[in-house]
């Protein structure tokens, strides 16, 4: 696919719709709330991945490492509570 010669024109590159010209684009715009959900997913994804090395090396850490993780989680809980109160978690 990288090497083969490609001669694309407007007919080849447009979406195929059973013989007639396509009425509209195949991709359509969507609500921004999907984006919001994706951002929230990234945030908690990052939080979970920060927990992995902490959990693995807990036996070598002092209580200082525990408190670091506790503060980190607290900061995210503040954001979570805010999102809950404002109503960003509801889809309506």
């Amino acid at each position: 696919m990288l090497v083969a010669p490609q001669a694309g024109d407007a007919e080849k590159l447009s979406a195929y719709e059973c013989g007639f010209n396509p009425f509209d684009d195949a991709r359509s715009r969507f609500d921004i709330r999907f984006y919001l959900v994706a951002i929230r997913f990234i945030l908690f994804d990052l939080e979970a991945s920060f927990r992995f090395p902490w959990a693995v090396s807990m036996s070598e850490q002092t209580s200082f490492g525990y408190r670091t993780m506790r503060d980190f989680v607290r900061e995210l809980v503040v954001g979570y509570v805010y999102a809950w109160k404002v109503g960003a978690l509801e889809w309506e």
Partner: protein
Amino acid sequence: MEIVLFERASLRMRGSARMVVRSPNAVHSVLYRVVVFVNASMRRFLLQVEFRARILRVVYVGAIAVLFRFVVMMLNLSETRTENQVGANGLGWQSRQSQVFARMSVRLGRTRVSRYAFSSEPRIPSTRASVENPGNGLRRTGTYVEWVKIMDQMWGITAFGQILYTDGMMYVVSAGMVLLVAMVGSIVLTLKVRRFAMAKRQQIDQQRSRDADRAVMRVKNR
């Protein structure tokens, strides 16, 4: 074996990075970007930094590529540009340039990787690391940590966790602050409609506890 895999990942990464730029379709270039990320994490696996490789896969491929895709879909790019003009004029110097880049990437991979990462000799000569012999007239303070020996004894993720939550406490907490700002900011920017819309909402408890005996009543017919 490792160096073959490393160079193959490097070349695949470079080729798909080129396709990110050259692809006329923005969604396709996001997908090529995913290939770039996967190969970058494969290179990190081969350099034995497993945690960074996994995080790169989880965060970039799983999350940020999805976000890029959303951005592309929100941009509403409707026109698809044909590549006839590029094929007639620009492909000559671009393919030459890509050949040069390919050779450069192979050469860089060969020197850096074979000399340091995959050879049995230590990465830094020990004469340079010792306190008694600083080497090159440079005065070094403190002791030099020989990461190669440490990395053989423990997992990379364990070594990472031992210093991240004590020595790098400020980084972790400030990363948490950045995440908090990101969350609050995304909510503030996008969720302005709901607060003013006084729409009639569903009330699930009342609706489900509604009884037919009380809801349906007989009306006297006059």
